[in-house]
């Protein structure tokens, strides 16, 4: 096993990568090296303690991931063992598959929607709720409640609200005399994605709002006080005090938003199953369709590998170029592996 240079000295103490703690992990021995017996015993104890987690993780996370990679080079229906090796055919097919290319495009659209509309809205609500407001705790709970509900519940609920004709949405529009605006919603090729986005906003903006609220609580009130004394208006204080100090939280929230869009499944599956005519299909839905409905396990695995690579490249690039400043955090500690 290789390890990074900082730990290779086999000293008594492995320095923390994070900034927060300086606690020595093991009581340091008298000399620069601990006795051999102690080292062996520590190693053995650590081994025993890690075994359950490692076994679970290896068997049910790493092994399947590796197998998905392997299967993606085969033409395989999912029964027996894969024998019909097709090399990179499944991957070249990806680039010609209008459904998959469409998935990518819809993914980009959803991310763009989220960044432009959902996150600013969440930020505005968070700033609002961070003031001393009557019933603040109640609002907080209400806005966050949708996030607790499963995506399936949300999906079923909104598929009924946006049911063409008899659903609540159409009835409301009818009641205020806007019958013409009511429509197909999830059933229309051009309306399904915007409507879906509306539901996603309902469900997820509370989560981002919570993150921002936690970030806002970390900004010392003195800073705002000082800015106020210096004559900064509320917009200026927001722009020059709140926003920069909230930047690490915003960067995390953008990251989670993108990863979430890549992995979107439940909500869409329940609402539209990717339809009509693929207009709301996501990568996971395509994978599911090809794998479990059409028994093209090889091709479906290629989709999941592509999905993994997209997440990985995005995560690495994002942490390399954006998150680097925020040293704390698990993904950031991956620099140890570079």
């Amino acid at each position, binding site marked *: 096993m290789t390890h*990074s240079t900082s730990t290779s000295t086999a000293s008594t103490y*492995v320095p923390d*990568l994070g900034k927060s703690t300086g606690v020595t992990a093991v*009581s340091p021995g008298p000399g620069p090296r601990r006795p051999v017996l102690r080292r062996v015993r520590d190693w053995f104890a650590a081994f025993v*303690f890690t075994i*359950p987690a490692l076994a679970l993780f290896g068997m049910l996370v790493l092994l399947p991931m590796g197998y998905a990679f392997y299967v993606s080079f085969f033409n395989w229906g999912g029964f027996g063992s894969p024998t019909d090796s097709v090399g990179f055919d499944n991957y070249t097919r990806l680039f010609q598959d209008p459904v998959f290319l469409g998935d990518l495009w819809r993914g980009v659209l959803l991310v763009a929607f989220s960044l432009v509309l959902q996150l600013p809205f969440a930020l505005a609500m968070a700033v609002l709720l961070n003031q001393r407001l009557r019933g603040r705790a109640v609002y907080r709970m209400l806005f966050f409640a949708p996030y607790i509900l499963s995506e399936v519940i949300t999906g079923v609920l909104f598929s009924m609200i946006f049911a063409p004709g008899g659903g609540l949405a159409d009835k409301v529009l009818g009641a205020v005399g806007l019958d013409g605006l009511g429509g197909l919603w999830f059933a229309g090729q051009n309306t399904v994605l915007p409507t879906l986005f509306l539901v996603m906003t309902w469900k997820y903006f509370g989560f981002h709002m919570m993150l921002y609220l936690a970030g806002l609580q970390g900004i010392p009130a003195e800073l705002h006080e000082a800015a106020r004394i210096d004559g900064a208006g509320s917009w200026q204080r927001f722009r020059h005090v709140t926003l920069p100090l909230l930047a690490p939280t915003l960067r995390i929230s953008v990251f989670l938003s993108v990863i979430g869009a890549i992995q979107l499944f439940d909500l869409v599956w329940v609402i539209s199953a990717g339809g009509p005519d693929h207009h709301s299909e996501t990568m996971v839905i395509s994978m599911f369709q090809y794998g479990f409905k059409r028994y093209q396990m090889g091709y479906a695995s290629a989709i999941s590998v592509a999905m993994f690579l997209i997440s990985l490249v995005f995560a690495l690039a994002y942490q390399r170029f954006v998150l680097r400043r925020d040293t704390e955090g698990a993904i950031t500690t991956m620099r140890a592996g570079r």
Partner: protein
Amino acid sequence: MVTPLLYALVSGFKSTDQLSSNTFGLPHPWVTSNYTSLLGSGPFWRSVGSSTLIAVATALLTVGASALAAYALARFAFRGREVLFTVFTMGLMFPFAVAILPLFILLRTFGLLDNPWGVILPQAAFGLPMTIVILRGFFREIPGELEEAATLDGCSSFGFFWRILLPLARPALGTVSVLAIVGSWNNFLLPLLVFSEPTWWTVPVGIQQFQGQYASDVARIFAYLVLAMAPALAFYAVAERQLIGGITLGATKG
């Protein structure tokens, strides 16, 4: 924001005819049969029981295995420690969906389809990274002197873990348990694939099937939704602090 939820609650008290003729008003008369028939039905309770059992087992397994690993990763100096930790943290980026096809095949090979373990084990495995990251951070902040003192008093490393570390880490354990329970309760893709027989259907799978089955009886689906939401919202009301603490902690750490 709450309008859709209230709408569902009130609609559950209407008949489907009322829903289309009287969309906005209060039910007239109030129809309770939608709710009562569900509350008296076996499949509904079975799915609630199945979800609960799976969520609790997932949480126990995730938190148990993670706590042991986080202890080793936080408080022992051994070769390859950071590499090991990196392997786990990389799991944070693996989308569940990526592994679902081979996972399904694996579970089929081991005969774990239509078996609650087929959902519990993978859920626990995918829950490990986040839980380990959170717990490791927490375990590191417990002073080393405490461990020295315990060792001097003749405490083994497991004894220290069990009798001192875990009780001290109770808030963190609560947080990660709540996260694991909520994650399991809301999981859909895995139970959907693993449980082809209704015996073990969890609440999300049950709802989806119910919607398919009673597609025309909209009021009844509303009632089902409300009853399915109730446990989650009640749990949220009780465990709000742990949950939000966990999410903000989990998000910034992951």
